[in-house]
């Protein structure tokens, strides 16, 4: 499994042809207390860069974009009642949705951990 990142602070953990998407620890720190997460519907087809989910902090709403193209195959429904998981455990329990990756080539265009770390120095 490899994890890749977007400059918009989404991560995608790639497991075969499926990717688990969420936001990075840096992103949750910047957003502050998450009070609501709007998830995509299962079956939704997304293009890379499409708005996929919305996280709401006390102050503002922020869009989460699809890091790659594909179909949403599962969402983390725990976030409906426990949006704070995005703050407390962003890269594990706070994942948002799983996507069936349409074009593996798109994965290669994303940042690796070192590249992302440089961005958030």
């Amino acid at each position, binding site marked *: 499994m490899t994890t890749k990142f977007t400059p918009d602070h989404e991560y995608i953990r790639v497991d075969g042809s499926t990717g688990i998407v969420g936001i990075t620890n840096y992103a949750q720190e910047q957003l*502050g*207390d998450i*009070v*609501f997460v*709007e998830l995509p519907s299962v079956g939704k087809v997304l293009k890379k860069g499409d708005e996929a989910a919305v996280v*709401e902090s*006390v*102050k*503002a*709403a922020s869009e989460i974009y699809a890091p790659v193209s594909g179909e949403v195959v599962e969402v983390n429904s725990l976030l409906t009642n426990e949006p704070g998981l995005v703050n407390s455990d962003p890269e594990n329990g706070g994942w948002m949705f799983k996507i069936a990756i349409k074009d593996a080539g798109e994965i290669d265009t994303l940042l690796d951990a070192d590249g992302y770390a440089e961005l958030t120095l």
Partner: protein
Amino acid sequence: MAEASAEDLKQTPLYERHVVAGGRIVPFGGYALPVQYPTGIMAEHKWTREQAGLFDVSHMGPSFLMLNNPSGEAEADHKAIAAIIEPLICGDIANLKPGQIRYSLLLNQDGGAIDDLMVARSPITPGGLYIVVNAGTKDNDFALIEAAAGDKATLIRADGDYALLALQGPEAVNVMASEIPEATDLGFMNYGAFSWGKDKVFVARSGYTGEDGFEILVNRHEAVALWDALLADTRVKPIGLGARDSLRLEAGLPLYGHDLDSTVSPIEADLGFAVSKRRREAGDFPGAARILAEREGKLSRKRVGLLVEGAPAREGAEILDASGTAIGVVTSGGFAPSLGKAIALGFVPPDHTAIGTKLQVSVRGRAQPAEVVPTPFVPHRYFRKSA
């Protein structure tokens, strides 16, 4: 709000304290101020409701309006200074008791709000008023007041030379009891002058959170010492602008530039209490014809509180009736940490304002249920002295 570059932003006397405390500094009303400290808005909000929060509100516009040639007869001098400010606002200032504060609105000729403000009668100086206006509007407000004063009175701006601190929450009174004990005798919406350190501080029993609390005007050279002294009490934590906004929203208090603007009248904004009886009967304030007609029910919109199901409806979200027709707009909205739910303030036609009316709000193109509920959303806990 237009983003100002860091160099253009003013700093309050407490700026370094915010930085040292890890405050996330943002531009607000031309000032560099903390939106939150490391614990975050939710924790800061709850701390204020349960303990005591300390806010730097030095960006606001505190000022003193002083009669130039007082006669020395206290009541006559007060009537004279009241006669200068009253033509600009809808409040009865002439009948304030020494030290009493009144919430009022500066109005244009159409009865729209130029600003909302606090006007208080000096408990010390006959012919003196203490006036506090909003940060974003203060230059224009002060110019209007100065024009009205002419050569009869002088406006002394206290922003810059002073810092304004707000200590809010159920423990605020107990904290003040050890720091400025005499101030704990003040009733809600009263102020006085007290000694602290080398200087005099002006303390008002007022605030913008719905909690009991105090707003303290302190000389800029003493500001850091007072800030530190209050924070040395373990019941006190510093609170940023983010929680200030969520606290005032839960308290149902309007924010100028959002829930109030130059088109909104006090009646539309559900601030009819601020149109004082004497002024109403005299009809002698700007926009009186419109405002008095609206009071009789001739109005097209009114501010309501909404309890929103699902995602928060933010400023600008459309309000729909039960059948989906757009009838109004949200002017402030967000998540209420004390309630664990989304709430909003917005304007709708009068026939949709009854408590319990089922409405909807449009969030990202989807209609979500919303219900008209009483404001404040969270009960006020002001300290009212029995007269």
